[in-house]
């Protein structure tokens, strides 16, 4: 597996141009800055995994990359356009080539699963209704939800909603896919299925895929490139091999899934305690604008 992704990566950097380039990105909600200068690059056909603890700003990064949040500084280049200053029609065109599956699914509660998946097709293509039906079934089959077309989202389990959301993101066969924790809360077999799907999409359709995840095994399986975010800063970035070999304490801690006191030497422990305090401040700030 390692070898395979190594080869792929090598081939990509030579052949393909940079499709997504995030440069010194700052994002704030009201007064509070969440991302402090993120850099990230994705070549076309690559799978980039964004790792990071809860609340580190992964979802915020993804939302900014699809143009839902305006950056307070920096640039996001996608397919030659800078989302920080893009015009509405240009953004619309770019978005037709992007698919996004949200952390909470974000399925339309008033439509069936089938209608959810069909919506982008109905809106943006002039396909026959019968063709759309077939495509919907195809996408649902990809995520193992064939036969659930006529269910309402409220009738699905959490994991099924997530998979339906993935199917909807795939509907338009986008060139770029954004997944916010596609396999969190899924059982291991289904989660492995999502991993396979991602590998398949990359291989068969040469899709560029950005995945936010907590699942380390899955991350190393699918990633060509990884970045680890902590409290809005990029702590480390590189190929999975780079990450594995990285000796930086924060990275080791995350990758080895070590509970904090166990890694702590005396100095680390002190450092952890001080970071602990800033964490607490963070949580106080979290009670923003209720």
């Amino acid at each position: 597996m390692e070898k395979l992704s190594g080869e792929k990566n090598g081939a990509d950097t030579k052949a393909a141009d940079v499709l997504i380039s995030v440069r010194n990105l700052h994002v704030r909600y009201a007064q509070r800055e969440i991302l402090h200068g993120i850099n990230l690059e994705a070549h076309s056909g690559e799978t980039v995994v964004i790792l990071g603890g809860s609340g580190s700003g992964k979802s915020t990064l993804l939302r900014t990359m699809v143009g839902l949040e305006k950056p307070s500084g920096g640039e996001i280049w996608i397919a030659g356009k800078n989302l920080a200053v893009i015009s509405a029609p240009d953004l619309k065109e770019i978005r037709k080539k992007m698919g996004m599956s949200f952390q909470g699914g974000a399925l339309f509660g008033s439509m069936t699963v089938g209608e959810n998946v069909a919506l982008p097709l109905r809106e943006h293509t002039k396909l026959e209704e019968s063709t759309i039906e077939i495509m919907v079934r195809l996408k649902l089959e990809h995520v193992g939800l064939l036969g659930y077309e006529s269910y309402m989202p409220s009738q699905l389990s959490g994991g099924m909603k997530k998979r339906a959301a993935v199917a909807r993101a795939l509907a338009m066969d986008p060139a770029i896919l954004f997944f916010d924790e596609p396999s969190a809360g899924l059982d291991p077999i289904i989660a492995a299925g999502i991993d396979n799907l991602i590998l398949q999409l990359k291989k068969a359709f040469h899709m560029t895929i950005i995945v936010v995840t907590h699942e380390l095994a899955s991350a190393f399986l699918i990633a060509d490139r990884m970045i680890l975010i902590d409290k809005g800063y990029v702590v480390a970035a590189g190929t999975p091999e780079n990450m594995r070999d990285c000796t930086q304490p924060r990275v080791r801690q995350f990758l080895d899934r070590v509970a904090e006191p166990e890694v702590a030497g005396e100095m680390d422990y002190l450092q952890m305690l001080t970071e602990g305090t800033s964490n607490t401040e963070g949580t106080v700030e979290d009670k923003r604008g209720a």
Partner: protein
Amino acid sequence: MEIAAQIGDEVTSGLAYIGELAALGWRAAYFTFVGPFRGRPIRFRSAISQAMQVGVGALPILSLITFFIGLILALQSAYELRKFGALNYVAGAVALSMTRELGPLITAILVIGRSGSAFAAEIGTMRVTEEIDALETMAIDPVDFLVTPKFLAMIVMLPCLTIWANAMGILGGALFGVSAANFTWGRYLQASLDALYLRDITTGLIKSVMFGITITAVGCYEGLATGAGPEEVGRSTTRAVVISIFLVVMVDLVFTALFFFLGNG
């Protein structure tokens, strides 16, 4: 001085709010009237299902309320008219108050409670569950997709409901006329029609269209402006209802004054 400054701030923010509503209404109007010529069909299916909810769904309760309002109006005006032995003017009094004022107003207030609040709650929930964001990432304009059908439904259904409300109010008055003022049903209706000019009805209907625009704009705006968290949906729903009622009364005042000074009233 401070009070003056505060009033100034309030007025500024009030005007800004109305500006936002106008912008939303303008965009919806664009998608309704200009969109079709640019190859994006009007969302008829969605508009019709909205119209069913806004219009047909409101009929039973609206009928009941306006029937009783008509009856109450008849009783109240009879109380005064009886002193002059002019009970036969009850029909005219009821017909005029219903068509010019109470028909449109009662209908609007009922529709605010049923549909304006529902718009805010529906769109607000979609905001909280990131469904609005999902629409945007799919390159679907939420105003086009969600707001435009509601405008269309409201602009068509509110005048229809108002006509119905006028009729039910007159019927309520007739019940009094027939049972307590020596009218027959036919004579009461004739007396009502004699008292009405066409413009009494049309000014009421023009107002009702403006009410429809106001209610939709406020409901949808509040929905779209919902913050994060489920409790925000409740808050924006309440705001939508309160602000709609206030603005409907303001619009009523403006148009009534306009008609008055234009000599149509």
